[in-house]
């Protein structure tokens, strides 16, 4: 495992130092030492890094204009940044989620650590450029860090536009997404043939198809990987809790004190995975998720032990 090797720029070190100092001023979060910051991984072959735990918004941030729920989600975003979070991922397919992010950012101010990830999705209508402009307005930000082609819809056309936007400096990174293990052969072809920075795919302890070809290819080509559905749509963690399964004692060695930490640490400790994007509406769950980003992390042998443990249940 080389997970402790980070290529940090001076600018990033200063950011981390500032964040660590700020953390000391924040109210105490359960399980977080004042000086603890989430593990960061490099984005592909670049010098930039990302905290390994991000945040998804599917279902959880689609609250429309409900003031009560808008305030609750704003608190969630505030806590996410306070705990060192970076990447937030959304899509025009997620209903009002981009607007809710815009509301939260307007209330909180744009955090330095925000890594805003959006998607182009053909059924949303309009051209890729129109969608990007609309989403920037809805998020209330000038520019996205990452734009992805959602579920490979019209990916050739959209990727061409995203490449132009990147060349013009209007987006930092571009990529493609898939989920539920769909169309992996096509994803592999795109990863092999196209110049992309990110791939987003489903990878969790119960759904490990990506380990066969996509993750090794991502590592080889220097493509950053976002793992979606880390709890398999929630069913993985719900089933474990409903059955009253206990976390194995040996997992404590890797800082796994909750099933959230166990499941997320398994994902983000894969050398090819850059970050995971669990979604939640609960502050307590967010705290559990973010604790999964803290060292120590399991190495290869421990990861195999974790997978075998879940398979045996």
């Amino acid at each position, binding site marked *: 495992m080389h997970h402790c090797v980070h290529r940090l720029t001076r600018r990033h070190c200063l950011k981390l130092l500032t964040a660590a100092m700020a953390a000391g001023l924040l109210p105490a979060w359960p399980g977080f030492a004042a000086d603890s910051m989430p593990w960061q991984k490099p984005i592909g072959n670049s010098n930039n890094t990302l905290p390994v735990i991000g945040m998804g918004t599917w279902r959880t941030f689609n609250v429309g204009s*409900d003031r009560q729920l808008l305030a609750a989600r704003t608190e969630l975003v505030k806590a996410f940044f306070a705990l060192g979070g970076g990447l937030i991922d959304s899509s025009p397919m997620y209903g009002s989620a981009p607007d809710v992010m815009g509301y939260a950012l307007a209330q909180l101010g744009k955090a330095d650590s925000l890594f805003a990830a959006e998607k182009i999705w053909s059924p949303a209508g309009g051209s890729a450029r129109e969608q990007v402009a609309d989403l920037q307005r809805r998020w209330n930000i000038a520019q996205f860090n990452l734009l992805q082609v959602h579920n490979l819809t019209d990916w050739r056309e959209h990727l061409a536009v995203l490449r132009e936007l990147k060349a013009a400096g209007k987006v930092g990174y571009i990529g493609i997404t898939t989920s*539920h293990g769909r169309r992996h052969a096509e994803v592999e072809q795109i990863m092999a043939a196209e110049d992309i920075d990110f791939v987003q795919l489903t990878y969790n302890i119960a759904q490990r198809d990506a380990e066969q070809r996509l993750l090794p290819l991502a590592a080889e080509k220097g493509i950053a990987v976002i793992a979606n559905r880390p709890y398999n749509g929630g069913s993985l963690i719900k089933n474990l809790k409903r059955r009253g399964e206990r976390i194995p004692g040996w997992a404590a060695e890797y800082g796994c004190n909750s099933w959230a930490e166990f499941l997320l640490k398994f994902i983000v400790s894969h050398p090819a995975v850059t970050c995971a994007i669990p979604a939640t*509406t609960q502050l307590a769950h967010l705290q559990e998720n973010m604790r999964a980003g803290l060292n120590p992390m399991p190495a290869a042998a421990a990861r195999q032990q974790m997978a075998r443990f879940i398979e045996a249940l």
Partner: protein
Amino acid sequence: MTSYASYQLQDFVPFSAEVYFRLLERISESWWPLHVLSLALGIAAVVLALKNRGRLACLLIAPVWAFVALVFFRQHYAQLNWAANYIAYAFFAQAILLLLPALTGFGLSKSAAATMPGRGAVAIAMGGAIAVTGLIVQPLIALMGASGWQVQVFGIHADPTAITTLGLVLMLLRGWRVWLLAAIPLIWLLLSGLTLWVLQATAAWLLFVVLAAALSACVLLCRFLSAAGRTR
């Protein structure tokens, strides 16, 4: 894994139960006390149907469908699900379809609902029961498990509007026209039932029961009452 086999029902519901029930609540709060008027309209429509005043009954409920399309779907539900805009078009279409019998008498039964013989009477009685379910039973059941504002009301929310209208269609129309005017309410109940199922809401079972009863009554009416002379 094939692309389509990997989709689950929950992939098509982009919001949580908390958000959906808050949506119902917010619509109720916004439009109170219109509920009293819409409920009175619904009851009046059922009474008119029993008295074989079908044209007037349809005339009363047609604008209700346009209102639900605009307020429930376009103004509120569409914030959560882009597909709601298309469902709003379907609800507008139902309003127009209801104007057909209201203005021309298209498909309406000549004889009073209460005088229908045999299996037709069973189907019409089922229609009456379904209409009452939409107007009274569903809100009462909801009251037992939810806060007052989350109770859905005919003319304000989509489910009771569709249920009551289905009942009225069964009471008033005959032959294939029953299917024409029942199709949109039936499809909505199916979609809404599946949504509630995904959200693990117990209210889903009521929609599925009404759906099954309405489908059975539609088949009965078409099979036994489509003979010439029963329709205009």
